[in-house]
């Protein structure tokens, strides 16, 4: 095939994609996930960031099953949820089964214009039992960050210190559905937008959980949106089986114990990954 032929083919593909999009000829699922938009548009934009900027290395991705449900529980950091996007891309690009990761997000995300729309289209839904169970029962891979905004909004001097794991709702859901829990430890996201302070007045005004002050934001304006090029690792832990434990789903003792175990695993893995990494910006 000549070079021109390839160009023609590429252009034709693009034309088909654009006309499909313009005529509404694509499918979304009941959660609003738009696979075509995510895979053809969002992930390609993130890919250079993943490969060249953060140089993400994944470890033990084969702990994630090739099919069927699993609940990925990760540490959350980085001011905005770049870690979630990188995790999504890691599973799609580097897992042999090219798995799509569905994410759970807080309700403020869906209240916020544009952010909520983006979240749903790329596969996220409300962090709630009904939604989580529905996705897991459909065999989806589900990602959750139990620290929530306490994790993303913590100051830089608290980096890699896991925050409270909420009420452990993710454990109940895993137990109720018999889904394995896979601890995910992410190193690198803490350094991309180091938080030095918070302006609560502005946060309230904008209806967001915190208004971050970093070395470059808001000082440099839009330039402050450029993340620092830290080196990333994503390590997938051994799956924790929950099969046949559905009657324990509403036992607070069991739920807290299991949540603690997951948290401890992630914390220890973070320490060993940090040691291995050395400097953040190598």
């Amino acid at each position, binding site marked *: 095939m000549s070079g021109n*032929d390839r160009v023609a083919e590429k252009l*034709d593909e693009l034309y088909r994609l654009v006309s499909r999009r313009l005529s*509404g000829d694509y499918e979304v699922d*009941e959660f609003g996930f*738009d696979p075509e938009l995510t895979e053809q548009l969002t992930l390609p934009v993130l890919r250079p960031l993943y490969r060249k900027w953060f140089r993400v290395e994944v470890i033990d991705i084969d702990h994630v099953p090739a099919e069927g449900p699993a609940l990925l529980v990760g540490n959350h950091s980085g001011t905005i949820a770049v870690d979630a996007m990188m995790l999504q891309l890691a599973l799609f690009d580097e897992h042999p089964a090219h798995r799509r990761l569905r994410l759970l997000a807080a309700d*403020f995300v869906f209240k*916020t214009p544009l952010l909520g729309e983006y979240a749903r*289209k790329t596969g996220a839904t409300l962090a709630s039992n009904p939604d989580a169970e529905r996705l897991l029962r459909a065999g989806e891979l589900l990602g959750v960050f139990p620290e929530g905004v306490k994790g993303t909004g913590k100051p830089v001097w608290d980096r890699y210190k896991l925050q409270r794991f909420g009420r452990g709702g993710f454990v109940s859901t895993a137990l109720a559905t018999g889904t394995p829990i896979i601890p995910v430890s992410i190193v690198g996201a803490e350094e991309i937008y180091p938080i030095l302070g918070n302006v609560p007045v502005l946060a309230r005004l904008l209806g967001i959980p915190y208004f971050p002050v970093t070395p470059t934001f808001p000082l440099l304006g839009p330039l402050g949106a450029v993340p620092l090029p830290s080196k990333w690792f994503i390590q997938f832990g051994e799956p924790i089986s929950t099969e046949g434990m559905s009657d324990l789903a509403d036992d607070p003792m069991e739920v807290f114990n299991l949540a603690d175990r997951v948290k401890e695993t992630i914390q220890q893995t973070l320490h060993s990954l940090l040691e291995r990494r050395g400097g953040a910006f190598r």
Partner: protein
Amino acid sequence: MPHSKPTARSSRRTVMVTGSDRYLGGQLIESLAADPRVADVVGVETGAMHNGALSRLLTRARVDTVVHAAVAASAVRSGGRSAQKESNVIGTMHLLAACQRSDTVRSLVVKSSVAAYGASARDPAVFTEETELRAKPRGEFAADIADVEAYTRGFARRRKDVTVTVLRLAPLIGPTSDTSLTRYFSLPVVPTVLGFDPRVQFLHIDDALEVLHRVTLDDRTGTAGRPEVFNVAGPGVLLLSQAIRRAGRLAAPTPEVMLRTVATAARGRNIVDFSLDQLDFLRFGRVVDCGKLTRVHHITPRPTPEAFADFVAGHALMSVLGAPDPTPDGPSFAERIRDVIGTKGTGD
């Protein structure tokens, strides 16, 4: 009705349908009248729902099955908001009062709406019949629906011998129907809320009719003391932006504050059907699970995208964007590119 039908009178139903002056009620009366399992159908107009008259009618006709299809979503076509509330809420109270006194009524079917679930950022993505309803939903029609369902639950508690079914219908759409929704999508430029792209779900009006018909003549006895609730919607979803594109319209994303001003201004005035609950719907959308209907009544409405396609075809919506596709017999886009950049087509 002619008395020459094959089935015995005793096993055949006598049905009362409210809302006979509305499209769905009128169609239901016709289809029930044509069903051999039905002995007689009595229609009641939306404005004629007074318990004394209804009581006499129930007794005289020996009605055993009541279908309450009069609850309406459109304030404009109900003749204003107060008339809408009057017929929705007060009308339901009168009907239930009459049913409670009746000793012939065995089955009551209430046409409700998925608006019962409201719409917010804190709601699960998909509502099931088990989802708890909010005590005070936002918006006028949603408030009506909440009242109608509350009275219906009260009735079911008091008359445990009557099988009560509540059908929560998704917004209706069809090739020829004229609803506030079809008018919305027929606007050349369709206002949406800037930064929000809700998931929407529709119910084809023919499917609504079929479900109502089937459930009305069903012989199952429900759970005594409480209504059996079913979501009725076309499975699958469309995003609002996607639906607008499929209808060949242009979306006009508008800041929420501006739409809120319009919704507030429209309140109490009988000009446009636009209220705060519709604004919430345009931000968060509403999707229901209708698996229960399929499992129990073995009927599934056609998928939302199909129902919407039928609406677009039926209304012959002209694309405001011009024809999007090149003619099938003309050169394809790839061929045209090859012409321009000068390669021989390798035949793909």
